[in-house]
Structure formats: structure tokens, C-alpha cells
């Protein structure tokens, strides 16, 4: 996926002008927040579980090399294969090699953000292999030729009318006069169509919510059951997982599961949590004959030991974007790369380079709500600030901003000069605000006054008024 994060400003403006998108985003604003709040309030131990989950991931990251080795040993012992990929290109190549050897014409896919990150679908198509997304949301956006706008609700930007139009356009073998009025009828139509695909696929590709080192198990968490059919029916199952997905034990996984669904959809548990360990066993009557895990680094090992290590605790629940005022305003596509919202504002610069994604950590009000709902206590605003520090150090922030900042800072450590400067600023603002008390046009903050007034200042600065007050007090 081409990085469009440098056009964030334009992307955002387009998103704000898109009425249909704005209507769709209203669902995020209301439904996700309410559902999570209810689920969290119903579990007294939620905060303790958050602390535990955080500690588990910290411990794992501090021993990531050892846990990955143990995971690998267990997978191999069960007859599975582990492939290590340093880059997206390497991972794509490994998938293709497996598909060619099968040989595969069609691959079904469970929802995977790693697949988006390595641009797998485009690559498979170029190599004459048809990828079929099977998660309903992913299926819808695949038909539309789009990318996910949310990490757990990929089609959250699309409304029902659009889905209906897409289904009529693409499902041409079905009767034209069929009724598609309800979300239910759309879902059943997708179920019918994808059922055939599931049964015909040669390879199934899924992501992983966890990799359990203890047992060499890959775990997916879903509601639709599509991921399960993806990994049960075809002859070959490929798991695409990034390094940091590993957890030590089944018990550790269970601790994190308790905060995952509640934070994501407000469920206590997602419908299906499926643990896969190796290929089918000699007496099994179903399941894949081959089990491959592709372990993708793609920049993550470089985050270890830095101020961005905590980001590797992320379990991709989406709570940060569900509670983000900026995401609510512009949606996920405006962020211009795979991962939107606050987690994307931290992760995208790490994986794709801050020179290309510099807007993302800057386009935040630092309201802190993302951190307050993050089940893994990831200090997202702090890490966005770290990116701003890197930009500042590397002179990536606009020169005019830096000049203004330096000038202001010069005054800020010289109180006498600062007083003088505020008196001039005050005078200017006072004149501009005129009789109304509000400024409708401000030369250095036109962005502000384009949309709202700048309230004018009172008669004097506080420091002027306070000196006068002290004099009067002494007199009386």
C-alpha cells in the first residue's frame, strides 16, 4: 500500500467534506465507546488484568529471543514449519513459494493486518493467485478495491447502501430482483458466496492474535468463524505473524484475552478463540496437512530497547482509535497507511519512517484518551511526543515553526522581555477584537479564525493588573 501519510492534511480535508463518511464515523463515536464502557464496568478486576497483561508483554519482550526460539522448537516438534522474514518482501516471497509448491490458484484469507502491511493481496494477484478475503468487512472492501480504515472493523467507513450496491455489481450470477434490504440479507449473501470459496481454496492464510511459546500454538480471535474455516478447510495453513505476538503460556494468553474483547467490541469473549498447533495429526479427519508460521520483523526488532518498545505490547484491539477525537473526525484512510489512529501514529513512523509519516504523531490534541483506554497501558501520547522530538532533532519539522518556537523560547526564559512582548501582543489583540470582544481574523492563526472567533483579551494583562492591584492594596 502506497504511503499517503504525507498528504494527511489533504486526506483529512477530503474526509471532513465526505458526508457519507461522516455519517459512518458516527457509529464509531457512539457504539464502540458505549459497548467498551459497559463491558469494563462489569468487570471489577479489569484494571488488575490490564496491569497483568502489561507485565506479561513486558516480560515477553525482555526475553523475546528466547520465547521465539521456544515457540519455533515447539512448532517444528509438531510437524509445522517456521519461516523468518526480516522484510515485507521476504515474507511475500515465502508465501509465494509455499503457494507455488502446492500449487495454489485460490487462497482464502482470515483478517490480517500483517497481510496489509506486506501488501500481500496485490502481490499474489500479480503472480496469478487469487486472494479471497473472508471476513465480511474485509470482503466488502476487497470488492471496493479499498484498504481497511480500522484495524478491527475494516469497512467501518462504508454504509449499508454502498454494500448493497457493491454486492449487486459483483454478484452478477444472483437474480437481479433479490431483496437486499437488511444487513442480515447482505450477510447471508456473503456467507453463501464465501462458503464456496472456502471449500475450493488450496491455501488458507490467517494472522495471529497470539503465538503461545509453551505449546507452539497460533491463536486467532474472531466473531464470524471465517478465520476458522480459512485455517481448517484448505490443505495448507499459513500463519502471518509479527515477532511481538508471542506470549509465554496458555495462562498468559488467557489473562490478555480477558482485556482484548472487552476493549475491542465490548464482548466478554469473542465468539471464536481458536488455538492451532501444527498440521493435522495421523488420526485427524480434518484440518490442514501443512502448517507454516511466517515470523515477520519488518522494523520491530529496531524498536526494542528504544523509547518505542512499549508499542510492541499492542494487541490490536482498536480501543485507541475508537476513542480518538481525530479518528472520529477523519476516519482511518486519512492516516494514509496501514495502521490508523493513535496506535498508527506511533507505529507507522517506526515501520515506514518518520520522514514519510511525520504528520501522524503531530495530528493529535494529546487529549490522552487513547492511553486511558489502552488495555496494555501503552503511553501513546508520550510516544507521539518522542516522534516529535526525533523530528525536531532531525530538522524535519517546518523551519518557520522552529524559528517561531526558538524566538518564543528566548522570551520565555527572560521574564522582563516576556512582559514587554505580551504587552505588545495584548495591544494588538485588543485592537483586533474591537468593540465585539472577539477577533474574526487573526494574521498568525488564520486556521483558527477561519472556523471560529478568537476571544479578545481583557483590558490589561494579568501582570499589569496585578501590579496595579498591589499598589492599590498598599495604599489602602
Amino acid at each position, binding site marked *: 500500500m502506497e504511503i499517503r501519510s504525507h498528504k494527511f492534511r489533504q486526506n483529512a480535508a477530503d474526509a471532513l467534506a465526505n458526508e457519507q463518511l461522516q455519517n459512518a464515523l458516527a457509529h464509531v463515536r457512539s457504539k464502540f465507546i458505549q459497548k467498551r464502557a459497559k463491558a469494563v464496568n462489569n468487570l471489577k478486576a479489569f484494571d488488575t488484568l490490564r496491569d497483568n497483561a502489561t507485565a506479561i508483554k513486558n516480560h515477553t519482550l525482555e*526475553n523475546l529471543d528466547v520465547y521465539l526460539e521456544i515457540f519455533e522448537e515447539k512448532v517444528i516438534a509438531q510437524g509445522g514449519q517456521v519461516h523468518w522474514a526480516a522484510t515485507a518482501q521476504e515474507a511475500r516471497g515465502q508465501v509465494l513459494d509455499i503457494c507455488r509448491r502446492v500449487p495454489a490458484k485460490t487462497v482464502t484469507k482470515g483478517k490480517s493486518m500483517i497481510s496489509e502491511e506486506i501488501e500481500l493481496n496485490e502481490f499474489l494477484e500479480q503472480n496469478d493467485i487469487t486472494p479471497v478475503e473472508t471476513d465480511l468487512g474485509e470482503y*466488502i472492501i476487497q470488492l471496493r478495491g479499498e484498504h481497511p480504515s480500522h484495524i478491527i472493523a475494516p469497512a467501518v467507513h462504508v454504509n449499508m447502501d454502498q454494500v448493497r450496491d457493491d454486492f449487486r455489481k459483483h454478484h452478477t450470477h444472483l437474480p437481479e430482483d433479490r431483496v437486499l434490504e437488511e444487513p442480515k440479507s447482505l450477510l447471508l449473501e456473503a456467507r453463501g458466496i464465501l462458503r464456496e470459496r472456502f471449500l475450493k481454496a488450496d491455501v488458507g492464510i490467517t494472522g495471529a492474535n497470539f503465538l503461545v511459546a509453551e505449546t507452539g500454538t497460533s491463536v486467532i480471535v474472531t466473531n464470524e468463524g471465517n478465520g476458522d474455516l480459512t485455517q481448517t478447510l484448505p490443505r495448507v495453513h499459513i500463519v502471518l505473524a509479527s515477532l511481538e505476538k508471542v506470549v509465554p503460556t496458555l495462562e498468559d494468553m488467557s489473562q490478555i484475552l480477558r482485556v482484548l474483547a472487552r476493549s475491542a467490541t465490548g464482548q466478554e*469473549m469473542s465468539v471464536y478463540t481458536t488455538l492451532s498447533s501444527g498440521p493435522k495429526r495421523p488420526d485427524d479427519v480434518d484440518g490442514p496437512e501443512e502448517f507454516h508460521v511466517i515470523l515477520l520483523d519488518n522494523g520491530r526488532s529496531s524498536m526494542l530497547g528504544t523509547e518505542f518498545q512499549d508499542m510492541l505490547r499492542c494487541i490490536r484491539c482498536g480501543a485507541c482509535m475508537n476513542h480518538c477525537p481525530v479518528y472520529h473526525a477523519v476516519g482511518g484512510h486519512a492516516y494514509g497507511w496501514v495502521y490508523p489512529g493513535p496506535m498508527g501514529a506511533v507505529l507507522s513512523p517506526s515501520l515506514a519512517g518518520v520522514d514519510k509519516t511525520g504528520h501522524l504523531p503531530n495530528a493529535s490534541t494529546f487529549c490522552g484518551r487513547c492511553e486511558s483506554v489502552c488495555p496494555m497501558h501503552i503511553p501513546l501520547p508520550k510516544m507521539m511526543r518522542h516522534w516529535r522530538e526525533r523530528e525536531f532533532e532531525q530538522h524535519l519539522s517546518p523551519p518557520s515553526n522552529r524559528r517561531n518556537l526558538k524566538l518564543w523560547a528566548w522570551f520565555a526564559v527572560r521574564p522582563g522581555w516576556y512582559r514587554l512582548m505580551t504587552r505588545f501582543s495584548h495591544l494588538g489583540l485588543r485592537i483586533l477584537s474591537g468593540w465585539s470582544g472577539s477577533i474574526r481574523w487573526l494574521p498568525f492563526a488564520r486556521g483558527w479564525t477561519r472556523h471560529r472567533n478568537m476571544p479578545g483579551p481583557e483590558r490589561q494583562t494579568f501582570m499589569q493588573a496585578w501590579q496595579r492591584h498591589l499598589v492599590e492594596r498598599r495604599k489602602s
Partner: protein
Amino acid sequence: MSTRSEILKKIRGAVGGPDEKNVRRVSVEQHIKRHPAGTLPSKISSKAGAIKLFIKRAKSADATVEQCGTANVAEQVASFLREHNLPATCRTGTDYKLKRLVSSKANLLELSEGPSDGNDITAISCALGGAAETGTLILVSGPENPTTLNFLPENHIVILHEKDIVPHQEDLWKKIRKKYGSGEMPRTVNMITGPSRSADIEQTLILGAHGPLRLHIIIVKG
């Protein structure tokens, strides 16, 4: 150098030197061996309490639940099928205990055996256990209860013995370790909480996505 060793070297450089890797491996293996359980939220002291909570949570996840004695399982299945106007044919695995339960003198049900190819309307499986905390069923793969039965048929009936209802999923990890060996797993473990669903269209929840449209749990007493 292979990609594998390059990645591992990079990680090692960030989290600790190569010498102390073996020290960390020992402590990591100890953690895995002890597999501490962390915080278990539900305070459940009795079996009856666990069963009651399981039923409540499973129902809140949109499963339907019935309780009956060993003699009435076939009748319960038949009544579920009648209620939903479904044919009396069911697919099962080779689980002989399950078959004994759903067979009846009156031949209420027509049973066929094996994995599903997608043409079965109803499947019956037997769960390894149920976690009361969230109303979650745990099923394991194998010829007794093939995994495809959990997902392909539109209706999934799961037999759960009272004795297999435990407070938390952690209790079932213990059971799996005991049955398969420490660190060993059946190929697939399915944790199932309610019938399949999707909220991908306008965040409106609809039951019945790619998996079963209905999940019916029969809790067998004694």
C-alpha cells in the same frame, strides 16, 4: 548469516548480551513450567455456582441452553430440531460416549458419522469442558469431534457434561495438560462463546455469519 540468526541477534543486542541468554532461557523455562494463572475474576466456590454462571453467560452470548439427564439427551436434540423445523439428521464424529447419549430406542435421530463437507444442516459435538466465567465451550479436534462440525453446519449442538463445567478457562488448560502432556496440544482447540456473528455492516450486530447460525448447548446432569 540467515535471516533467523540476524533477527535473533538484533533482538539479543537490544534486550541483553549473548552470554546471559542461557540464564534467561532457564528463567523463561521455569516460568513456562510454573505457568502462573494471574488474576481469576469470578469467585466461584461450588459446582452448582459454576453451572449456574455458565448458563447465564452462555445465554448472554446468544447460545440456547438446556439441562437434562443422560436418558433424555436424544429427546432434547429432537425437540430442538422440531422447534426450528429442522430435519432429524445430524452429523457427529466417532465419540462413542456422545453416540450413546444421542441414540435412542425410538430412533428419534438419524445420525451420520465423520467430518463435514458443508452439506450438513446440524452437527452434534461433545465439549471437553465449559468455562463458567464467560459461558465458553472448549472443544478439541480429533476423529471423535472433527473441527469442521463446529463451523460448517448451520446448527451446532454441543453436549457438555456437568462435571466438565469449571470456573475458568485456566482450569481447562490444566485438563489439557493432563490429557495431552505438558506443552502438548491437540491440533485445534476451539473456544466457542455463542453462535457466529458480524457487526461489520454499520456496526449492527447480526447473528449467523460464516459459522453456525445457532449454538445449542445441552448440559447433561450427573
